């Protein structure tokens, strides 16, 4: 009996897979067939025809056409199945997937949370070191990977900073890279002219970022939505153009080189050692950022940001000063960009305006949106995916950016709210039974 039910459930799962999103199997077959033909047509010029310019011949690669037709034909079944499953999940639960449920369990069980954090901390600390374990030499990250991790952590900080502006306060800022550039140039120039060290430049970069955030915020924050996005985009470009053309001060497009790496009580360090040192500095900065952003978002000011994002008019009618609140978000976001800029300059020891193009702003914004707006864990995961995936895909050469784009599209189709969506804090209060009794 049980065997039979299992059989039918398997049967129905199979038929669900085959006919997901369609009326019947012939309909599904027809749909997949049409999709296959369409893709063959679309990819014909790049996948089938190949012009050999040396021999002056045209090579027809018909076998590619067959591969594409077959893969699209079968792939379309999977695609429709995934879409249908997503729809079903939306109906059944209130958007809480298994992964999110697991995260909630981790979050609410102190022992699991604590041990997990310890595990992450231990891995993070020992990863770049060479050590001997049970007689075998181990090293998780070599120099190359430590370097990648440092830039990934820089983007985590940038993402968390932009998360304040975009994710919490809902201000679409497309010129975030400007503050990053200001931090980097603040360190590079002060180091070149006055020999200022990294540890003095870090707070300096933060302060300059904040000041510039306030300065830019005053005129710009009267705008909202798309208008704000365009003006901040323009501002980002202005900063880059100034850096490029004001040669006497910024050294122009040739940039500034020989920027000092961070010092450690005047110790001389090899490149490997200083990269590892840089890695630990970044771990520290990331922890500091998470600490601050977490506290901010669950504070009086964090709630005001959220309210501002949700409904500006209601927010003002509840007594929140719109300008002041927006300005605070903008300035705080810029603070972290300034710090990240200083670290970036110290890490690469060379900067030029080409590092601060709109592409950087777009990547940082993608980290926030794909990771999950307003969610710290989401932004961290987003940064890891968006920075590490292109790095590790280097083997795929020219398909690297194609795959990168495909991953972004997939995330937006299946998780439009971001990989890990933000959760509201549950506040603790003392329930008074008398008051509730009166209302029943």
């Amino acid at each position, binding site marked *: 009996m049980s065997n039979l039910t299992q059989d039918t459930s398997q049967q129905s799962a199979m038929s669900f897979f085959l006919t997901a999103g369609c009326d019947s199997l012939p309909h599904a077959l027809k749909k997949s067939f049409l999709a296959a033909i369409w893709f063959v047509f679309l990819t014909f010029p790049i996948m089938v025809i190949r012009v050999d310019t040396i021999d002056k011949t045209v090579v027809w690669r018909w076998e590619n056409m067959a591969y594409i037709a077959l893969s699209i034909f079968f792939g379309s079944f999977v695609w429709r199945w995934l879409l249908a499953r997503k729809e079903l999940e939306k109906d059944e639960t209130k958007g809480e997937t298994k992964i999110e449920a697991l995260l909630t369990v981790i979050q609410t069980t102190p022992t699991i949370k604590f041990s997990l954090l310890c595990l992450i901390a231990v891995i993070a600390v020992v990863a770049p070191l060479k050590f001997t374990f049970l007689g075998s030499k181990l090293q998780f990250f070599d120099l190359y990977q430590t370097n990648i991790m440092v830039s990934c952590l820089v983007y985590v900080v940038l993402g968390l900073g932009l998360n304040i502006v975009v994710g919490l306060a809902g201000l679409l800022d497309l010129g975030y890279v400007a503050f990053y550039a200001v931090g980097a140039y603040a360190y590079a120039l002060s180091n070149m002219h006055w020999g200022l060290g990294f540890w003095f430049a870090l707070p300096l970069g933060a302060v300059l970022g904040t000041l510039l955030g306030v300065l830019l915020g005053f005129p710009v924050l009267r705008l909202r939505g798309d208008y704000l996005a365009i003006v901040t985009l323009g501002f980002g470009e202005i900063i880059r153009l100034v850096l490029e053309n004001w040669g006497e001060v910024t050294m122009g497009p040739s940039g500034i080189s020989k920027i000092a790496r961070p010092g450690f009580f005047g110790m001389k360090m090899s490149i490997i050692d200083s990269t590892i040192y840089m890695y630990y500095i970044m771990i520290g900065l990331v922890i500091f950022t998470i600490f*601050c952003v977490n506290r901010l978002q669950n504070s009086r000011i964090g709630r005001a940001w959220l*309210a501002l994002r949700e409904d500006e008019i209601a*927010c*003002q*009618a509840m007594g929140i000063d719109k300008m002041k609140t927006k300005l605070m978000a903008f300035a705080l976001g810029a603070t972290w960009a300034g710090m990240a800029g200083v670290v970036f300059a110290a890490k690469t020891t060379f900067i030029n305006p080409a590092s601060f193009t709109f592409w950087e702003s777009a990547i940082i914004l993608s980290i926030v949106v794909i990771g999950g707006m307003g969610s710290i864990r989401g932004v961290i995961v987003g940064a890891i995916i968006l920075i590490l995936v292109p790095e590790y895909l280097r083997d795929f050469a020219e398909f690297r950016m194609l795959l990168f784009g495909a991953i972004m599209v997939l995330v937006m189709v299946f998780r439009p709210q971001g990989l890990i969506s933000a959760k*509201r804090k549950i506040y603790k209060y003392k329930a008074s039974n008398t008051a509730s009794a009166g*209302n029943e």
Partner: protein
Amino acid sequence: MNNPVLNVKAVSKDFGGIRALDEAELVVNDKEIVALIGPNGAGKTTFFNCITGIYTPTSGDVLIDPTAHGNSIRINGRKPNVVTELGMARTFQNIRLFPSMTALENVMIGTHCRTKSSVWGAISRNKATRDEEQAVIQRSYELLELVGLGKFVNELASNIPYGKQRRLEIARALATDPFLLLLDEPAAGMNPQETLELESLICQIRDQFDISIMLIEHDMKMVMSMSDRIYVLDYGRMIATGTPQEIADNPAVIKAYLGEDDDD
């Protein structure tokens, strides 16, 4: 005789060539429930927006006196958040809660202008901030209990039933510590039973918090039974004012609502 807490003097509001409010006058005395009624499009919500700072009146004066002791403040042209800080809190006709925040957080937003912890306080989480936060949570929870939302505390505002959302808006407005509560159609979309409960809630709020209440409402039964005085607005003009009985017998009001009888 105490000073009126709200004194609106000849306020007009033009939108281009259209005069939405034409020298409207209105007075709210201390601890009074005043209703503003009128046909659709009469300018009631525009009137609300003018006195709460969302619009700036074209002419006229809006004077408030939070303590009712004779020192009036002129508030037209002030920003909405300043008006709220001075003590006039409102709700909206089309509910404007913060949908992805919990009910408790919605009410906590209301306390924003009465609290003052800063960025440094938030990051360092010092004793003053922690105490303030705890007091805010407690007070917000009590307000939720008062309006009968005790079991929706940690529910997202968008998941709360419609009638309860209006109550949540009232709780949020009360959290700003107002001397005058402005309710824009609080009973819209409620069934008779809910309207009755709302009526007793509003009276309870007036007595418990010692505040004045002004409301726009279409439900005549509710307006007649609970208000101390009624103003009638039609085409931007105040056409009548008086006690519920006087308004019910006023021919100008009947004309505005039902139209003129040509046979007379």
